[in-house]
């Protein structure tokens, strides 16, 4: 099913979606765009390149409360926080970010223990993917095509959206998407010409190039296994690294978290909070031992996790080439340049 709407009337579509659940879409903020729950349909603005922070926060918010309690009171009086899940529409997600959900699914729900928070939020959401604009070159930091992700890949979305001039084309990709689009009375039917445009754009998106040549997961994984002990290499690539968490916090596939007890005036919450392998105390043990005291060890962990360990454990590279880490880095460290350099080493 292919539908369309005029981009100038996007707030009508937004309003209709808001009538069915939470609408989470890019919103213009001081520093750039970010995904937020929309409170006013007019906030929806598709005039963005990509958001600063990835849409993972829709399923894996920076803080997630597990249990509330009173300090000093009996454990039996503690109350687990019930997840109050309502249908959600994640609107305007770039194809590389859509891909990230699939990668995170393997970790959070596909292997070993099931993370109930990720699972429930994910199940309740419909993804409205949104193609990159093929008429403007990719940002210099992006490299999603290098990882085999097209600029207009509809896979993984429930509904996929492509801009055509002043119109927005919306195609249902999954049954969930079919059902949704059928219910959207503000949408009109697309023409055969629109359908051709849609298909052509998807195809053109596959040919759309970001930087570097394509890579395969397994040889990279092996290369990093061999390079692990090459301290000289790692010291060289991490010389500039400040060991802050900017790259991991904006990343769509970084999933590390801490579990904290935070209390104030007797009221306590046990919650999880995003954590970063780049922080010194991430691996500090109670004994005082810390296997990763040096910056190069921590950057090595981050790069190897995404481009080696994850491949060996779960299959795919844990990176979608969205370029956020590179753009956010205060010292311009670029993860794919490190991969590139490693393959040459």
């Amino acid at each position: 099913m292919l539908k369309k709407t005029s981009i100038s009337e996007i707030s009508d579509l937004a309003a209709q979606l808001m009538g069915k659940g939470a609408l989470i879409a890019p919103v213009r903020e001081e520093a750039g765009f970010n995904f937020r729950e929309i409170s006013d349909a007019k906030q929806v603005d598709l005039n963005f390149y990509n958001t600063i922070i990835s849409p993972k926060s829709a399923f894996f918010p920076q803080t997630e409360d597990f249990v509330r309690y009173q300090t000093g009171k009996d454990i039996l009086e503690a109350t687990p926080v019930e997840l109050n899940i309502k249908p959600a529409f994640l609107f305007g997600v770039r194809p590389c970010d859509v891909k990230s959900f699939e990668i995170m699914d393997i970790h959070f729900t596909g292997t070993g223990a099931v993370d109930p928070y990720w699972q429930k939020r994910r199940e309740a959401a419909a993804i409205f993917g949104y193609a990159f604009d093929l008429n403007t070159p990719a940002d210099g930091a992006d490299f999603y095509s290098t990882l085999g992700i097209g600029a207009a890949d509809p896979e993984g979305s429930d509904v996929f959206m492509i801009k055509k001039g002043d119109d927005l084309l919306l195609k249902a990709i999954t049954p969930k998407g079919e059902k949704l689009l059928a219910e959207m009375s503000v949408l009109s039917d697309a023409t055969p010409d629109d359908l051709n445009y849609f298909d052509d754009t998807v195809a053109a998106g596959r040919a759309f190039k970001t930087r570097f040549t394509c890579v395969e997961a397994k040889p990279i994984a092996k290369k990093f296994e061999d390079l692990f002990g090459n301290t000289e290499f790692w010291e060289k690539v991490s010389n500039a690294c400040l060991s802050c968490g900017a790259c991991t916090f904006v990343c769509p596939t970084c999933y590390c978290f801490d579990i904290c007890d935070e209390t104030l005036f007797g009221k306590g919450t046990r919650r999880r909070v995003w954590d970063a392998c780049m922080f010194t105390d991430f691996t500090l043990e109670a004994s005082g031992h810390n296997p990763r005291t040096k910056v190069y060890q921590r950057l090595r962990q981050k790069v190897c996790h995404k481009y080696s360990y994850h491949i060996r454990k779960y299959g795919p590279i844990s990176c979608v080439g969205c370029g956020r880490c590179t753009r956010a880095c205060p010292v311009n460290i670029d993860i794919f340049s490190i991969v590139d350099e490693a393959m040459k080493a």
Partner: protein
Amino acid sequence: MCLNNPYIPMPVEIIKIIDEVDTHDIKSFRLKFLNPEDEAKFKYLPGQFSELSIYGKGESPIGIASSPTQDGYVEFTVQRAGAIVPGLVTAALHDMDEGAKIGLRGPLGNSWPIEFLEKKNIVVVGGGFAFTTLRSLINYMLHKDNRSRFGEITVIYGARTPGLLLYKDELIQWEKRNDIRTVITVDKGDETWTGRQGFVPAVCKDVAPSPANTVAVICGPPIMIKFTLPVFFELGFSKENILTSLEMRMKCGVGKCGRCNVGYKYVCSDGPVFSLAQLEELPRDF
């Protein structure tokens, strides 16, 4: 939500506290489940661990020191941390009295590979505080229903001083039995000590267990492991037949929080038990 949520602890009551060592910084806590359904669900094997959970303080991953053959409770031996990193949970636990209620998440991690150990001779080597899950394994193997499943059992256990030996009553019981060889050593004895003196690696060399159909299970401080492993290699033990348990900083305990990886393995869910052969495949990042 609580059901099948791996992050929510089960309530337990401390029913007994045992002061294990003369420095009073290691205590065993015997815990009883407050909900019978939690107890029924808590099926574990020696080598597994749990997160001990105190609201307002946090959680601490601790190896299970009791054996699943011991019904009605589960026991943890906990050292008060804090020399370098303030250990909020272990400190709070040490300040608690019998009757206090805490939280427990588990059982977590893999276990000592019981099926692999069956029909083999077992040499258990422990040093200092790192004897807890070894004790669980020994008590499991010694249980009357299990003893015949294993070959000869040798235990080599050392501590710095006699006062620092854990589970002193049990050590005496084991020494009396003839279906287990118990070799206890201290680095330095006191005036009352009549037993062996010497470091664990030297004692292992002295005891010289045969590698034939034998698995060595070794836990101890890094320095002990470092000098003990060559002894076992020299004796002819293969890397597949040397097992140990790793320690890494853990939080979630179920392979989600990304903290405790060594290469592509998460120590909390893929471990903590690894053979030396498995460890050699992993990067030296622990």
